Structures are given as structure tokens and as C-alpha cells.
């Protein structure tokens, strides 16, 4: 097996009950969010909009801390939704996943390479 054949391992970030979960990308790696899933089945009987923020926080070379909002997604409660990212989201710092609404379980898969 060649080193090029080794596939990056996905890291799962789970965010529940309106919380924020953070995954820090190691400094010698690049991160790619390749899957976002929102499970709102725990909100039985309710219908609501959940705003999902994916933030990439990092410090540029010679600069101060920066936060870049990369994705905001609105969803309806009561279902499991796979968010189509079309292309993996590129992450260079600490990726923070935050759900604006208490209840839904939100998870994402991050590839580090």
C-alpha cells in the first residue's frame, strides 16, 4: 500500500441541545467537512427552524484571532436531514458547530488530511 492510498479518517462532531461543539484541526493538517446531519426527531409535535452555524476560528500568520462564518443552514424540525454540502467545506482552524435551537442533535463528519 502506498501512502497516497491511505484514506483520511473522519472525525465526528456531535452537537446536542442548542450547544456548541468544537473540533480543532491540527496545525499541520487541513480539515474538510464532508457530511452534516441534523436529527430533529426529538422535537415531536413541534415545527421550527433551526439555524446551524459552522464557524472556522483561527489565527492568521502575524495577525489576531479571526472567526469566519462558513455555513448557516435553516431546517425544519421533525426529521433527519442530511445537509447537501455539494463540495466539502474546507476548515483551517477550529471548527465550531452550533445549533440555535434546543433539542435537535446535529452532527458533522470532518476529514483531516
Amino acid at each position: 500500500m502506498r501512502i497516497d492510498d491511505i484514506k483520511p479518517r473522519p472525525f465526528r462532531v456531535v452537537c446536542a441541545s442548542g450547544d456548541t461543539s468544537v473540533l480543532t484541526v491540527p496545525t499541520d493538517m487541513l480539515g474538510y467537512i464532508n457530511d452534516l446531519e441534523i436529527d430533529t426527531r426529538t422535537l415531536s409535535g413541534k415545527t421550527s427552524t433551526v439555524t446551524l452555524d459552522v464557524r472556522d476560528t483561527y489565527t492568521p500568520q502575524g495577525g489576531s484571532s479571526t472567526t469566519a462564518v462558513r455555513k448557516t443552514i435553516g431546517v425544519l424540525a421533525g426529521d433527519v436531514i442530511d445537509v447537501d454540502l455539494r463540495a466539502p467545506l474546507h476548515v483551517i482552524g477550529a471548527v465550531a458547530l452550533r445549533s440555535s435551537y434546543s433539542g435537535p442533535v446535529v452532527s458533522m463528519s470532518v476529514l483531516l488530511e
Partner: protein
Amino acid sequence: MAIELLAEMPSLLKERHIVHFGEGWPDTFKNKFFRVARPQQIEYTATYIITADDTFDLDFDKPSGGGVDGTYKSLLPVSSSTLYEILIGFKGLPVVYPRYNNSYFGKLEVANVLPDTTDDRLKYLGFYSQLQSPFCSPKLREYTVVEQQPPQLRLFNNMPNDERLVIRFVVNRCKVEKVDERNLNPAEKERARELQYHTVFTW
């Protein structure tokens, strides 16, 4: 040495290999043959986050206080009996322009046909990226000795978002011994690896 792009990941210098330094190198090395006595391979990775549409310059020299900092990577040897053979690979979207003495190395002969990160017609001239020299199989090679003009790299992020560039330096630190040319047979001279200083590419 002038930075060079190779078709494949090159093999590193090994014990007993002979190198010849051409014109332009510091006097200790210029026009002389050296034999590799002891090679040692050292991995060295540097990471940069470059803001959108911006550049960052790094230098192979050492910072004034020693060690390393963001700009100065200390990739020149200290001993006059050491040769660094350095492979350079990239991971990330920014591109890299080699420079010497604060001038771009990859330029064509007509006046002003040289890299310009502010000009769409010239920003993709004389650069390298992860496509040419990937992190896992670097194909860019540079040689350095003590007291030479330090190579420089200008990193350019042409993307709308800030981007990270991870640079892998594979440093083959070689202890070298001077060899009297008269003690080399023609075959050894023929096989010696020719190291060309960047100034010979200015003509």
C-alpha cells in the same frame, strides 16, 4: 542552488556520492568537488495561514536571535562542511513563488514578464503549488550551504477565504568533504551531481 522542479520525487544524496559546485557559490565551495561522508534525513513542517488575496514571505535564513520565527526558517547550514539538500512539498491551495535577493526567480526574458500577484495576467507565472510538488511526494529540490544568499519563498493566497498552506521540508543534512579533482577519475567526475547556483540562470 537554484530551486528545481523534478518529474519524480528525487532520491536523496547518500554516503560516497560526489557533488560539484559550479560558479556563484561561496568561495569555500565554488568550482570544487565534495564527497558526501554522512547524510542524515530530517523532517521539518511549517504551517502558514494566509489571509485572502494576500502574500506572506518566508526566508531560509535564520532570525537575528537564532532559532526560527514565522519568516525565518533557519534552512542554511552553519558549518562549512555541511550541505543541506532540501525537498519541498505543499498541502493547501496557496501558490509559492521562489525568490532570491528579493527578486522573483521564475521570470521570462521580455522586460516585466515576471510574477505579479496584483495582475491576473502574471500571477500564475513562475510559481509552484501542491499540484507540482505534493506534500507526500515533494518534487521541488533546493541545496543550501553556509553564507550563501538565502532562498526565499513568497506564499500567495488567491482564494476568497483565508487558507492554510502546510510546507514540508525534507532536509538531507550531509557532512561533506572536499575532494581534490586530481584524485577523481573521469567516470566519477561525470557522475558527480552538478549543483548550480541561482545566479547562473541570469544571462
